[in-house]
């Protein structure tokens, strides 16, 4: 047996429609409409039928009553052919299938079908069974029943009793006695085929009307639901998918005032918020990235500084160790040199040789003092001084020295007093180092400008002093090394390469900073910053 199967694509399409909101609504409304219509239809048909039967019975009884009245004279005068003639005439009326008159014994006395005349019906005959089949209580009443013919159309069967009257038993024919109650029956079969046909027609018309009505209604509902629900929902769904894929600038164009319009508005507001949030996140990400890069750079710089200062510190420790060890043998060389020196009078070769030994030993001693200064112990004798005074005292010391005779020195103190808590002798040493370096860079000729001022950095106040010379400047290559110990550009024997290294250490220990700006060929500026002393309130 071949199995009935639906094309899977069609099946899917049907399922889609049934599961859709429109499909569900339509199905629900359709079922309600169908049920309502069916109920209405059944009720209407029932009512019509009841009315029809009621009217038909009334008509049938009138007809039978009419037959009784029409044959009354013939009965009283016992004119049998006339009665038969009347029955035949009336029985041929439209819709009358059969018209019979029975006597009280069940014999057909007259009939619209002449051949039936004289036939006696038994009590089992369907006509007699109407009354005799049941309890014979209604035998004396006019009765009716409905039967179907071979074609399926209904017949209304009316059975009307003929009661005995005085004119019946007193008539000249003397057929009936006075004690008889019922003299016979008039029976008529009336066809209801016309009504049945009309009802059938009506049923078809109503059914057709409902089908058309439901189809039109479904179409209208479908269109309305499509426009109001399905289409906006589809647009909303598309919008959500676009938003989910990241297109947050997309706007829904639904401008209805219903719930879907509200939903679209809320959706648009949501995408705006999401877009803002997304932008902010990206911005934050960028800021974070920048911060991380900045921090990384800071860490690298700090690391480089740390490595540099570690390098300087270990160099310092080594220098101190070496210097300390050398001090004692140097004491021996100098002492015995002097003792030997006394043994030779001036001008002799031996005396000159010994003088060279002593001179060089003294030079060693100076170098070692420099080394030990670089690696000096941390103890400081801090006092509150005016930074300008320290500068002045250094200048007073060097001003008249030969190296400074051709150097113009300009002083500019923007604040009369710059209080700093420092070891003034150490600071003295720093300023002296820088000024001597400046003089060397200018080769004894040029301008040295010294400025002091108050500066603010990261909410902290500093006293800053600037030494600007017009010397040969520092090359970019040398700039990296100027604070390293033993680095010098001065001729052998003139510089130990420790001055700036020592100065750097001293300023750092004072919580300050030493920086350099140089323009090779034009000059160099050294900036020294020290924390400004502030009285604790």
């Amino acid at each position, binding site marked *: 047996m071949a199995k009935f199967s639906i094309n899977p694509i069609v099946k899917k399409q049907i399922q889609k429609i049934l599961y859709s909101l429109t499909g569900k609504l339509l199905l629900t409304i359709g079922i309600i409409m169908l049920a309502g219509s069916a109920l209405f239809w059944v009720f209407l048909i029932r009512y019509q039928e009841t009315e029809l039967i009621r009217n038909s019975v009334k008509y049938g009884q009138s007809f039978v009553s009419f037959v009784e009245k029409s044959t009354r004279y013939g009965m009283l005068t016992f004119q049998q052919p006339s009665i038969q003639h009347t029955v035949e005439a009336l029985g041929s009326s439209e819709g009358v299938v059969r018209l019979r008159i029975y006597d009280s014994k069940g014999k057909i006395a007259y009939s619209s079908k002449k051949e039936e005349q004289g036939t006696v019906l038994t009590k089992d005959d369907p006509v007699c069974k109407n009354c005799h089949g049941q309890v014979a209580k209604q035998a004396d009443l006019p009765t009716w029943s409905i039967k179907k013919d071979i074609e399926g159309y209904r017949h209304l069967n009316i059975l009307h009793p003929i009661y005995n009257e005085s004119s019946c038993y007193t008539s000249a024919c003397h057929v009936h006695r006075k004690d008889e109650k019922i003299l016979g029956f008039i029976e008529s079969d009336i066809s209801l085929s016309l009504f049945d046909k009309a009802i059938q027609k009506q049923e078809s018309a109503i059914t057709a009307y409902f089908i058309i009505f439901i189809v039109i209604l479904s179409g209208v509902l479908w269109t309305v639901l499509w426009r109001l629900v399905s289409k906006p929902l589809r647009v909303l769904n598309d919008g959500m998918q676009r938003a989910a894929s990241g297109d947050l600038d997309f706007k829904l164009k639904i401008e209805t005032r219903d719930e879907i319009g509200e939903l679209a508005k809320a959706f648009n507001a949501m995408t705006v918020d999401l877009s803002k949030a997304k932008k902010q996140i990206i911005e934050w990400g960028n800021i974070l990235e920048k911060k991380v890069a900045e921090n990384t750079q800071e860490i690298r710089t700090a690391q480089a500084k740390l490595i540099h200062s570690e390098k300087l510190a270990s160099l310092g420790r080594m220098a*101190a160790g070496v*210097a*300390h060890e050398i*001090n*004692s*043998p*140097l*004491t*021996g*060389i*100098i*002492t*015995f040199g*002097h*003792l030997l020196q006394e043994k030779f009078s001036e001008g002799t070769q031996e005396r000159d040789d010994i003088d060279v030994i002593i001179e060089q*030993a003294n030079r060693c*001693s100076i170098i*070692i*003092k420099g080394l*030990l*200064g670089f*690696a*000096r*112990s941390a*103890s400081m*004798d801090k006092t509150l001084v005016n930074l300008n005074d320290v500068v002045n005292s250094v200048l007073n010391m060097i001003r008249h020295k030969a190296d400074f005779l051709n150097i113009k020195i300009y002083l500019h103190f923007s604040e009369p007093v710059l209080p700093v808590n420092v070891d003034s002798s150490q600071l003295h040493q720093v300023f002296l180092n820088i000024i001597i370096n400046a003089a060397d860079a200018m080769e004894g000729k040029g301008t040295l400008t010294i400025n002091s001022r108050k500066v603010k950095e990261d909410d902290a106040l500093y006293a800053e002093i600037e030494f600007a010379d017009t010397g040969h400047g520092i090359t970019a290559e040398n700039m990296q090394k100027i604070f390293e110990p033993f680095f010098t550009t001065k001729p052998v024997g003139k510089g130990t390469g420790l001055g700036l290294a020592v100065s750097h250490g001293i300023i750092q220990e004072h919580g300050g900073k030493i920086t350099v700006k140089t323009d090779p060929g034009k000059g160099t500026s050294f900036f020294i910053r020290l924390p400004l002393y502030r009285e604790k309130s």
Partner: protein
Amino acid sequence: MSEKTKRLLVIDDEDIVLLSCRRALSPQGYEVKAVNSGEQALSLLEKEEFDVVMTDLKMPDMDGIELLRRIKAQWPEIEVIIITGYQTVETASDARKLGAFDYIEKPFTPAQIIAVTERASRRRMKHSGTRNTKKQ
């Protein structure tokens, strides 16, 4: 110079420093004794009398400051000179507060060491009376 021989004790862990002191000061009429450690110095001080003690600041066992304290506690009349490197000048100046006569920086010349020793011994002579009084 005084007619009495001035007795000097030098303490340094470096022999060359001791030798330098001896060679510079002996011709000046000082009787110079030299030892390498504070412990040796203290045991020698128990046995012999000295006018001036000259000690290095940095030594392995007992440092110059500790030795100074001990000497000043037991023999307050003895003048103590501190020998120092540049690095420890600050400590040396602190030592003066503890009773040291003066300090001298290494490397020194014979003239420098003679000068400071002379000054110390002169003061020692001044106070020698006090010491004698104490002993009586």
